[in-house]
């Protein structure tokens, strides 16, 4: 099996996001960067598949120099090699351009299955996996929580509103990973040591023949609207506080 897993480096979920005063984006100083949590599920599934069926796992990431750490993390988890697309023109690119870069990097590689996260928790777009599949002419199943592969037959489960759907398709395909798919492993110490010597191919946009375009862009970033201070209900009697709360919800907030 030739398995590819796409990973994006994103701010750690603990990060307090600060908006630049001119609204041109967020303040990046002091941010701790990590692998997108949904990509961890993708990498884990890729590794499990390799362990079961043989083959190797290639990690692909589009991002600035720091994204190399995230590629190394995936290699430390057990992937064989990496491709790092690093080009200033691709920083902050929209889904179309990012997917174009990933598609260009992947095209020509032997590939049976591609894993992406269901969304990257920075822009929360949830687009790149599907766009990539479309560009490569592959079927995609998004939000996968269970995956079975037998020969070239693929059976994937996902939750939709009020139901669980089982979808059948065939390799090669793109799978986007949702929480529930597996429990991502931690990189072991020997794994981290080995990862340092694994090959990572670094390329710029020209080398893969991609030109950044803009289809949609965040023209302005703003902080969330401020919330007025809340009301703490006083007193010792839980029943009285509960009654007061329900009254406030009905008469003041008008939400029940």
């Amino acid at each position, binding site marked *: 099996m030739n398995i590819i897993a796409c990973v994006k480096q994103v701010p750690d979920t603990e990060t307090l996001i600060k908006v630049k005063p001119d609204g041109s984006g967020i303040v990046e100083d002091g941010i701790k960067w990590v692998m997108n949590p949904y990509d961890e599920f993708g990498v884990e599934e890729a590794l499990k598949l390799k362990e079961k069926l043989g083959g190797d796992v290639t990690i692909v990431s589009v991002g600035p120099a720091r994204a190399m750490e995230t590629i190394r993390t995936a290699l430390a988890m057990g992937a064989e090699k990496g491709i790092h697309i690093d080009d200033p023109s691709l920083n902050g690119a929209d889904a179309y351009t990012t997917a174009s870069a990933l598609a260009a990097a992947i095209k020509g590689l032997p590939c049976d299955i591609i894993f992406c996260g269901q969304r990257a928790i920075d822009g929360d777009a949830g687009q790149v996996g599907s766009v990539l599949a479309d560009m490569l002419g592959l079927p995609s199943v998004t939000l996968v929580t269970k995956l079975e592969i037998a020969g070239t037959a693929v059976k994937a489960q996902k939750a939709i509103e009020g139901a669980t759907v089982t979808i059948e*398709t065939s390799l090669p395909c793109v799978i986007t990973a949702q929480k529930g798919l597996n429990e991502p492993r931690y990189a072991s110490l020997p794994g981290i040591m080995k990862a340092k010597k694994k090959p990572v191919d670094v390329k710029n946009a020209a080398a893969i023949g991609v030109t950044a375009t803009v289809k949609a862009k965040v*023209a302005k970033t703003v902080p969330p609207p401020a919330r007025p201070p809340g009301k703490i209900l006083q007193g010792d009697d839980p029943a009285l506080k*509960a009654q007061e709360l329900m009254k406030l919800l009905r008469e003041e907030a008008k939400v029940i």
Partner: protein
Amino acid sequence: MAKGVWIVAEVRDGAYRKVSFEIASAARKLADELGEEVCAVLCGSGVEAKAAELGKYGVDKVYVADNAALEPYTTDAHAAAVAKIVKEKQPAILLMGASVQGKDLSARLVGKLATGLATDCTALKIEGGKLVAVRPLYAGKCFGEVAFETSPAMATLRPNVFPIVENAKAGAAEKFDPALDAAQLKTKVAEIAKDTSGKIELTEANVIVSGGRGMKGPENFPLLEELAKVLGAAVGASRAAVDAGWRPSTDQVGQTGKTVSPNLYIACGISGAIQHLAGMSSSKFIVAVNKDPEAPIFQRADYGIIDDLFKVVPEMTAAAKKLMA
């Protein structure tokens, strides 16, 4: 030039999903501002007769693809059908629901139509004759205003945020041939296992009652379910409750779970970690029940009760019952 505000309507089991009316209403508002028409794309099997219903919410015209391969929804068939009619008619704006289906479809259309998409929008406006879509980034830790350089400008709208407005228009059906090529249809639905528990979907709920580690164990969640039942609410959970195996992962609210925006969010035994707040802080009203006065959830709550949830929640249920009776 591209013209017209379009929506893709979502039908399941022969009925529209509510978000379809929300996007129709939002589309009407934009179209009136632009002085343009609202058209809908309706894909399914035996759906032609349903077109007129969209007229009630401001849709002038409905392009209907009626084909057995469009029921139930598959990515390949629906994306091919919508892309075909959109390429032919070239609308300026294309709106979908930020439902599981709408997100799947819209992302695939980014590739097929080589255009831009803003996911999970909470507001829309027209600036200089063009769409600007407002959406949460970093799960709501900030918001972005998205501008589009290509058409159609695509946006998925978060369910439950845009009001449904009746505004009778023709809703005239016009059939089109989706020209589906069997060789292109590479995904098939093998099974749909419905959740028959009557559970309300978190992302669509008006009221959510959520429990965290403070619930102590799965055996105590019926306390929240009873309150939820009285309030017509969905039950959510913190990651701590999900990771402990007390609740299914589909119940998780937060940065790596669901982002929700109900009118009322009641957090019980949840501390209010930044990742949890990220997923629910756009709720209209937030109630916190926690015995720790220092819990960060109180900084976001509109109403707080500092007490043992095991004493307070049953009283809330009783009080709500009385009020709702």
